């Protein structure tokens, strides 16, 4: 018909196909999915993706794998909602969709030569693992990596083997804690804020990166400010209801920002004057 035109243009809402190559059980509620994406998939550490459960829906996740690896992507997911509970039922060779990567990741260039304090809570260690891999791949560029990780119970801890390996690495310092111990646990007991004292860092050239549940990020941020960190040196990964990932659907606004477009990584300096950021 004459009164119709067609246009061939990139469809920003179309997911790419990804196959579940492996599933690693990290804890009773957390699994890592190893995905092989049709055509390679590249991301910068800290950026997020939208995973599609075909015919069901999407949810946002930050990859937990090394951004230098292009042919596979790992995403660590906690079973907490409608999509994640269905994702947890997947098996090897199942097909998912993936869109992205979206947003602004960790500014590695600003971390050069610095002491990098990384504070994780629960499944919040997932995006931080990707950051750790990125840092480890160029460890000469950084002065020191200090990881402080807290989980609810020993059972809820993820990447247990890796934590032990990282602790043995040069220029890397790892301390973990659990809120509540059990018979087998011989480590620290207490909230993650309790292992933020006597840090082996030089505050004058340190940055802090925090990821975890909002309440944990709130108290860790307060503690870091207390220790003398400047708001501009505290990097937070914000969790909001990112749906389109493109700054259009409107769900993830905080203040003048969209988390999907301007984040998900923000400095506390950028967020500190926005009310209720921890809600």
């Amino acid at each position, binding site marked *: 018909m004459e009164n119709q*035109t067609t*246009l061939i*243009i990139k469809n920003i809402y179309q*997911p790419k196909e990804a196959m579940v190559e492996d599933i690693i059980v990290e804890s009773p509620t957390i699994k890592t999915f190893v995905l092989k994406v049709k055509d390679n998939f590249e991301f910068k550490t800290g950026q997020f993706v939208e995973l599609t459960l075909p015919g069901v829906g999407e949810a946002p996740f930050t990859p937990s794998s090394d951004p230098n690896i292009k042919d596979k992507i790992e995403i660590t997911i*906690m079973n907490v909602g409608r999509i994640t509970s269905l994702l947890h039922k997947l098996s090897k060779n199942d097909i998912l969709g993936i869109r992205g990567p979206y947003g602004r990741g960790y500014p590695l260039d600003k971390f050069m030569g610095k002491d990098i304090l990384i504070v994780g809570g629960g499944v919040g260690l997932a995006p931080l693992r990707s950051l750790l891999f990125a840092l480890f791949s160029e460890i000469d560029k950084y002065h020191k990596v200090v990881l402080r990780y807290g989980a609810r119970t020993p059972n809820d801890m993820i990447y247990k083997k890796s934590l032990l390996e990282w602790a043995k690495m040069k220029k890397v310092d790892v301390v973990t804690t659990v809120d509540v111990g059990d018979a087998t646990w011989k480590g620290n007991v207490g909230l993650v804020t309790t292992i933020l004292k006597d840090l082996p860092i030089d505050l004058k050239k340190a940055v802090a990166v925090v990821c975890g549940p*909002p309440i944990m990020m709130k108290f860790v941020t307060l503690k870091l400010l207390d220790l003398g960190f400047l708001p501009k040196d505290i990097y937070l990964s914000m969790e909001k*209801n990112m749906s389109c990932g493109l700054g259009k659907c409107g*769900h993830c606004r905080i*203040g003048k920002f969209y988390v999907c477009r301007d984040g998900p990584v923000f400095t506390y300096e950028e967020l500190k004057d926005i009310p209720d950021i921890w809600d």
Partner: protein
Amino acid sequence: MEIYYINSFQLDIFLKSLKKDYKIFSPKAIRKDSSLPDYHYNYLNEDNPLIFNPYRCREPLKSFFSPAFEKLADYFNSEKINYTEEKIIVLGVKNCDLIAHKVQDFVFLAAQEIDPLYKLRRENIILISSDCTDFKEVCHCLAWEILPYPKEGFDLNLSPLNEGYLVEVGSVKGRELIQRASEYFVPAKEVQISSRQVKRKNLEERLRKHVLVQNLVSKDIVQKLVKEGYNLDTWQEFMLTCVECGGCNFICDTCHCFLLMDKKEESKNSRFRVWDSCQYANFARVAGGANPLKTRAKRLRNRFLKKFDFFVENLGMPACCGCGRCIEVCPGKIDIREVLKDLAKKLEKL
């Protein structure tokens, strides 16, 4: 750009001749009682001949560019997709609609990724606007320094004059359209253009009086009001009658929020876009249950912060064109003018 005169009879013939290439939408009056009629966009045909709407239609202009429900993708197939979209002409658009459309353009075109369907429609839809010759009680464009006649953003603009219209060309698309029947379009005379100016000023003055007595909040202080009024009880008071219908969002020509919804259809998967409302309880809820907009008061405040803080920061203009559609649609009688006035009143007292 250039201005022409066309008489009503010729305009009618001209539009009829366009029907073979375009779907034409034109306002249709619907009168409920003795009050002023409402206008709805309808197909232009024998049952719905061309009429002039003195003020904006009931539906927001965005309905033509991002409909309430539409399919965005079938997956998995190639990243590129063929869209077929009809050529459309919309008549009876007003300046408030065109101003609001800047917000939609910002969202769907100017962000880092271009929405393909929106872009296609932006190219295919021809907007024929017209001057307002009257206003509704809820109209308050002037409070935001928006005039009741357009200066830009249209393809063609009609200003009623004597037995016809002055037609101002606003774009290449508009010029190409009238070149199809250039014999009907006579270059406007000076006297006709000054006569248009007089009519425009008269309406503007009438509307200014209507707006002035209401003592409305002005453009330059509105961002400050919503930010400083964050903790006021205004939100709590005004939300009391909110029934969370989302009408204010859906009828708003600047509101753009949507949900992505996936469905299995036989052997393929499809993704749809559905308008969403920030007044709905789960709008900002995340997996695990945290919900930063848990209460109706917070959601009402969200609507105002988005319009008067976020868009002022990001686009340099508030996302309200003063069309008053949200006031008319609200079953709880929540009036955007009154909410802002309440903030101003309470902040003054502090």
